[in-house]
């Protein structure tokens, strides 16, 4: 499964959005209706799924789906 697909699945699961809404350009707040607590839970979902910790400063920059994918690509993921 590609990284994009895994990220998309987590977003669908946490935010209850439709697959077609989860484009790389989609903003978590305005396009996917996630408030700040939703976004925090989402970050925790990525942390659990990919076995890493994302610190708060980095997390606040991850405002779109594409930025999350890009961020994870640059990490040395173990799974």
């Amino acid at each position, binding site marked *: 499964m590609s990284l994009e697909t895994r990220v998309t699945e987590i977003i669908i699961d*946490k935010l*209850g959005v439709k697959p077609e809404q989860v484009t790389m350009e989609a903003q978590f707040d305005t396009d996917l209706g996630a408030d700040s*607590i939703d976004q925090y*839970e989402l970050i*925790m979902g990525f942390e659990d799924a990919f076995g890493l910790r994302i610190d708060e400063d980095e997390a606040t920059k991850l405002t779109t789906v594409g930025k999350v994918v890009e961020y994870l690509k640059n990490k040395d993921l173990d799974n």
Partner: protein
Amino acid sequence: MEKRVVITGAGIIGPVGNTVSENWKGALSGRSGIRRMTIVDPEQFTSQIAGEVKDFDPLDYFDRKLAKRIDRYTQFAMIAAREAYEDSDIVNSIEPERLGVIIGSGIGGITTLEREHKIAMERGVSRMSPFFCPMMISNIAAGRVGIDVGAKGLNLCTVTACASSGHAIAIAADMIKLGRVDAILAGGSEAPLTLTGVGGFCQLKALSTRNDDPKTASRPFDQDRDGFVLSEGGAVVMLEDMEHALNRGANIIAEVAGSGMTCDAFHITAPAENGEGSARAMKIAIDYAGIKPSDVDYINAHGTSTVLNDINESKAIETVFGKENAMKIPVSSTKSVTGHMLGAAGAVEAIFTAFALRDGILPPTATLQNPGEGCDLDYIPREARKVSIEYALSNSLGFGGHNVTLALKKYSGK
């Protein structure tokens, strides 16, 4: 002239059914909602039976995101509130600021509390859900209902154990009489069927252990009663200023004529001797309604099926009405079919009492075979009874010594 308060809508989800009409049919026919526990592994408990909500999928009611962010107890509150709201047909007839919500719960989100506590212990607090607090706290059902129906008036939660939703209705009726709002969704909900929820009541030795016969395990006033059966669910009524209801041509189910609220100030779990606190609650409710004890035609008892409750509540009724007169008043406990829905119980029973007034039929104590010693009243054993009634009481008593009695009146125009 003092305002009068009427019930213009009702909703129930519980072990006897997932709609208010299914519940009323079940109460009248004596169809038990109790079975062997499935939500938690029953093997570990002394009491292995429960009144579970059946055929229930939260996704039939909520979208996926919302379903995951509301505890089971909040789900039940929202489902019952939606039913009462729709039943009342008030939607285009009230300003949002004039519609309130009072939803009680004895415990709150204990499912969420247990799950997140386990995560915190095993993986650390940094892995806890950020939604833990707004899922677990006892008032959040009222808050969620407010969002769900757009009710912007007074909004609060009553927490008085098994009297929680009796109090919700009593307080709501007073708020409407004071003119604070025009209508209030009032009731309660509970989802206690978890490891510590069931375990805690087992440790109190409060629950029936008649595990081999779930359907008759809740047997209020019977000589073989051995404790209550733990149940879950939600129940909500729409209470409304009578004038407001009449002006919009609402369908009126019954009138809330008064209430009585007292405390035993005696013991945290055992009732006061001869149900002294409960007797005072009934007397106050009768006075509040402006009637005499002889006007009361039916009592929906708290009737939990514990040894102490049922004898003391019977004694309390004898105190209020006199022993001889008390024996002429039909008394029943619908917990015989619902089990004990704790924070939802008072509202379920208020609804049954209102329907008994409306329909002229009294629900039975469905499982009663032989009344126990000291239980000397007419408990409407096994069969519903057709009789037109004018006034009825509904009792709710909670751990902590909380007593609340609602006095309801048949609505017959004007």
